[in-house]
């Protein structure tokens, strides 16, 4: 309900006058000595309660009559008459926010939630007066301001509403509302502060989105415009979905048996559902699932990787429901030659001894989560390593190999410069004084191959061993660490390390892990097109407890993720829906053209890679003081900046490497957010609570909105019925008052005691 003359509501304060008069204006009773007091006592006893109620009723009537009069003068506009509101009568500024999360694609009947939202938005546009301004934003994980400025061009907004579509993302409610508020703040012109305005939010009140919003601030309390939520949801829908389908392997070899771990949400917890596994659109497996009361069921598929090359797979749950978009999940893998890793170690010196790379080799060979890592590791002794040996590998691990000759270091520098990954472990065999000039200054065009200056070997006493601290929790090396693995990593005790001082002037160097004493333990640096990781301790039990049985999982995870990072692969077969993607293109084409084929597209589009010319990264690798001239080498990798991926499915990227006759293909699987598969809706009251401090109201139809703004209310005035109501109240009050206070003795005379006396004669 809105008021067209809201200041008149101050008149409602006059409703307190009857109360004041009642309390202060009591009449002083007249004293009278009476004989028949006994009858008066009896009658008073019978009438006092009713009398008190009548008095109270009279008081309330007077209060209500005055308050109603004030409300009537304030010219209320009643929302239930909204359908009678004429199109083109709504003034003020409005920001339309359309929830474009995946749940809005739910289609219970003929129309989806998003289509209903579009229809309601169009209905609101019909109600707008020509002078009403409107803006529009589409809300998902990010709030995209389709029409970021308030405009009088309603037709443009109408077209934007019609073009909009629900995506596969989740809804970040706080971002959406902040965006709407920002539009108003940007458009707040002098003299317009009091103008009617409202945020109209078309959403399905999905519980997961609103529950997440309830945990965080929803905006600055000041200057929040009123909000009208148009609820386009239709109750809680049962939904079957594939929540997850992951290949745990980092690299896949042709002919290898792959393991797909999936989580399926069945339509009903008491009914069997069937899941199909497709690879390259051929169904290769099918499994029935018995939920047994579980809301989500884990399932595992083992299948052959197939011929060399890229493959696209999808897992589909065969159940019909209202939301089809989450019924299958795609994945992609490359069954080509896996990234080869070379471990350079110091071999065992005697019987019963282990080589320095033994544990790293074991870590790479250890099945991770039930599947082999897919990394093919080759071990070579430090004294046998050849400078030309590195070019056949993607990652080189120096497992505390001891002394290496100059030719090897030069080859390693070129290897990293061209895009290779180098993982250096500094164990007891390391001679920092000999290594520092070799690896840091002498052979570096820039500041050096290693991420810092090497100091001395430090060996700690048994009672002073140091623990591990995580300096960058979000670093890719640590990104896949579960909380358990993190805690295991923190429990690792380091007995020996080489002190490393990061180069403060090098912006490409960073510390990932430190010791509890503050000394850097794991450092990272990008060098040329490649990357170097330096671990200040060795991969053996003499250096730390990382390799012993209890903490071995930390070593395993650390090495696998480090190799994934250094090899430049891994996550690039997956991407998030609606997010831009940075793809690493190995052996990029000379013209930079990459053909991008989104799912269900007939023809590929064209995008261009950002060619990285070695030595051109002046900013990332500033020249050192006495740096030698950079060797000229062809770029082995390039960055491909892909715009936000709007469609779920497998995206295909193809390019022709220089000097080759066949295309190289990279597949990227894009899946919707699993949390959107939960279609449970939040209760209205809880949703309003989650939105605080926003002042919101929830309606089903936009025409029913009780309030858009003070001066642009939807609805109709009802002055005559209001006045009649006031008059009716006054009439009732007069009648009651007359009955209570002005009844004359003659009224009862004919029937009362006097009648009895008259009959005596």
């Amino acid at each position: 309900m809105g008021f067209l003359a809201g200041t008149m509501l101050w008149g409602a304060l006059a409703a307190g006058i009857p109360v004041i008069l009642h309390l202060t204006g009591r009449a002083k009773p007249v004293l009278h000595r009476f004989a028949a007091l006994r009858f008066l006592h009896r009658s008073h006893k019978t009438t006092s309660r009713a009398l008190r109620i009548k008095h109270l009723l009279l008081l309330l009537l007077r209060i209500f009559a005055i308050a109603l009069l004030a409300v009537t003068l304030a010219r209320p506009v009643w929302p239930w008459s909204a359908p009678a509101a004429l199109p083109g009568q709504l003034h003020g500024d409005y920001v339309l926010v359309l929830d474009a999360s995946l749940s809005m694609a739910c289609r219970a009947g003929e129309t989806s939630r998003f289509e209903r939202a579009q229809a309601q938005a169009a209905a609101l546009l019909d109600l707008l007066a020509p002078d009403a301004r409107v803006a529009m934003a589409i809300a998902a994980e990010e709030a995209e301001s389709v029409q970021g400025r308030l405009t009088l061009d309603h037709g443009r907004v109408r077209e934007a509403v019609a073009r909009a579509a629900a995506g596969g993302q989740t809804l970040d409610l706080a971002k959406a509302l902040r965006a709407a508020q920002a539009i108003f703040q940007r458009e707040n012109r002098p003299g317009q502060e009091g103008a009617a305005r409202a945020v109209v939010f078309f959403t399905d009140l999905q519980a997961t989105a609103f529950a997440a919003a309830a945990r965080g601030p929803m905006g600055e309390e000041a200057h929040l415009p009123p909000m009208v939520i148009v609820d386009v949801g239709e109750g809680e829908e049962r939904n079957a979905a594939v929540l997850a389908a992951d290949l745990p392997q980092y690299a896949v070899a042709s002919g290898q048996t792959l393991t797909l771990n999936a989580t399926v949400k069945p339509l009903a917890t008491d009914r069997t559902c069937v899941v199909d596994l497709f690879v390259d659109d051929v169904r290769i497996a099918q499994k029935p699932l018995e939920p047994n009361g579980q809301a989500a069921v884990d399932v595992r598929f083992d299948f052959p990787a197939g011929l060399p090359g890229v493959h696209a797979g999808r897992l589909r749950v065969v159940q019909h429901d209202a939301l089809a978009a989450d019924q299958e999940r795609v994945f992609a893998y490359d069954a080509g030659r896996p990234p080869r890793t070379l471990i350079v170690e110091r071999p065992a010196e005697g019987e019963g001894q282990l080589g320095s790379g033994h544990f790293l080799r074991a870590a790479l060979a250890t099945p991770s989560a039930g599947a082999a890592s897919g990394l093919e590791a080759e071990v070579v002794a430090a004294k046998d390593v050849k400078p030309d040996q590195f070019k056949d590998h993607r990652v080189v691990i120096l497992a505390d190999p001891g002394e290496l000759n100059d030719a090897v270091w030069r080859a390693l520098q070129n290897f990293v410069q061209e895009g290779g990954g180098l993982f250096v472990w500094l164990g007891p065999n390391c001679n920092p004084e000999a290594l520092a000039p070799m690896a840091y200054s002498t052979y570096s065009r820039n500041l050096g191959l290693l991420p810092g200056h090497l100091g001395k070997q430090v060996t700690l006493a048994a009672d002073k061993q140091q623990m591990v601290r995580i300096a960058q929790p979000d670093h890719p090396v640590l990104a896949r660490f579960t909380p358990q693995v993190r805690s295991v990593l923190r429990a690792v005790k380091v007995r020996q390390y080489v002190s490393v001082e990061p180069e403060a002037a090098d912006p490409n160097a960073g510390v990932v892990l430190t010791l509890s004493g503050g000394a850097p333990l794991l450092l990272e640096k990008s060098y040329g097109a490649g990357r170097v990781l330096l671990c200040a301790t060795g991969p053996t039990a003499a250096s730390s407890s990382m390799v012993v049985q209890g903490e071995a999982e930390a070593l395993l995870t650390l090495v696998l993720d480090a190799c994934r990072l250094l090899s430049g692969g891994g996550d690039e077969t997956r991407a998030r829906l609606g997010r831009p993607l940075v793809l690493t293109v190995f052996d990029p084409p000379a013209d930079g053209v990459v053909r991008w084929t989104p799912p269900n597209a007939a023809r590929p589009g064209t995008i261009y890679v950002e060619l990285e010319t070695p030595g051109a990264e002046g900013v990332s690798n500033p020249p050192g003081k006495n740096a030698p001239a950079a060797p000229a080498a062809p770029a082995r990798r390039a960055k491909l900046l892909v715009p936000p991926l709007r469609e779920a499915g497998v995206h295909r990227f193809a390019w022709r490497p220089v000097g080759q006759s066949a295309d190289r293909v990279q597949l990227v699987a894009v899946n919707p957010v699993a949390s959107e598969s939960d279609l449970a809706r939040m209760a209205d009251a809880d949703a309003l609570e989650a939105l605080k401090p926003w002042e919101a109201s929830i309606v089903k139809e936009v025409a029913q909105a009780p309030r858009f703004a003070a001066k642009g209310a939807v609805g109709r005035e009802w002055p005559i019925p209001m006045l009649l109501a006031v008059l009716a109240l006054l009439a009732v009050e007069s009648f009651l008052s007359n009955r209570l206070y002005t009844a004359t003795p003659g009224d009862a005379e004919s029937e009362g005691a006097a009648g009895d006396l008259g009959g005596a004669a």
Partner: protein
Amino acid sequence: MAVLAPEAYLRPDVIRQVQRFDLKARFVMEGFLAGLHTSPFKGFSVEFSEHRKYVPGDDIRAVDWKVWSRTNRYYIKQYEAETNLTGHLLVDVSGSMGYRGPGGELSKLEYATYLAGAMAYLMVHQQDPVGLVTFGEEIHEYLKPKSRPSHLLSILRRLNEARPAGPTGLAANLHRIAEMIPHRGLVVLFSDLLDDEAAVLDAFGHLRYRGHDVIVFQIFDAAETNFPFDELTRFEDVEGLETALTAEPNAVREAYLKEVSAFLERYREECLKRRIDFVPVDTATTFDKALLAYLQRRCGR
């Protein structure tokens, strides 16, 4: 000065202006009798009963000469007065009887005394002995029934001197009076009956048991029967027995009048059961109505 017709003195507002109490009673009685000229109760004072033969020793003034002239025999007229009806006037002089409502001409006690005085006139006028008892909580005055004119003056003087005071002891005094009166007679009670109803009715039964004819003049002030108050009033008991009460008269009037009506109705029914004449009057009622009730009772004997 205009001369008022005798009937005018039946109105309380007129009789109030008469100074002497004996005149008040007399005027009421004369006004009542004057009003009876056209009534069917003609010859009330010399009411004929029967003829009987003259025997030596009878008063020759009683011989009916008209019958002698027709029949040449001596007959004597016998009159009702000879039945020797003994009347007892019981006047309640408790504090509640002193109440006079707003705009009222007479208090309940004044009305009762005028009515009792007029009735004493009537009784003495027909040679009936009449006595007087005034009582409040206790019996104040008791005059034995006599029919001499000088006795009438005593009654009138006692009535004139009666002043309302104290609580009422109606039921107890009626029991006492029932024991005090040795012979059957007519008992006329003037009271507002504001005492314990059951006890009063029990006392009425006692009087009836002793063979008395009983007439009860239940006297209310006009304000008590009409409740004419219209502003917030704090009511205090004139006898000081009941707790004071502040009430909005318009709100309680209906219930109050129902209570009063029920009170009168209960007395009416109970008196009917005991063959007692119950005459409710208020101080605005003209005296003839009250006296007529007495006359009806007198003729019924």
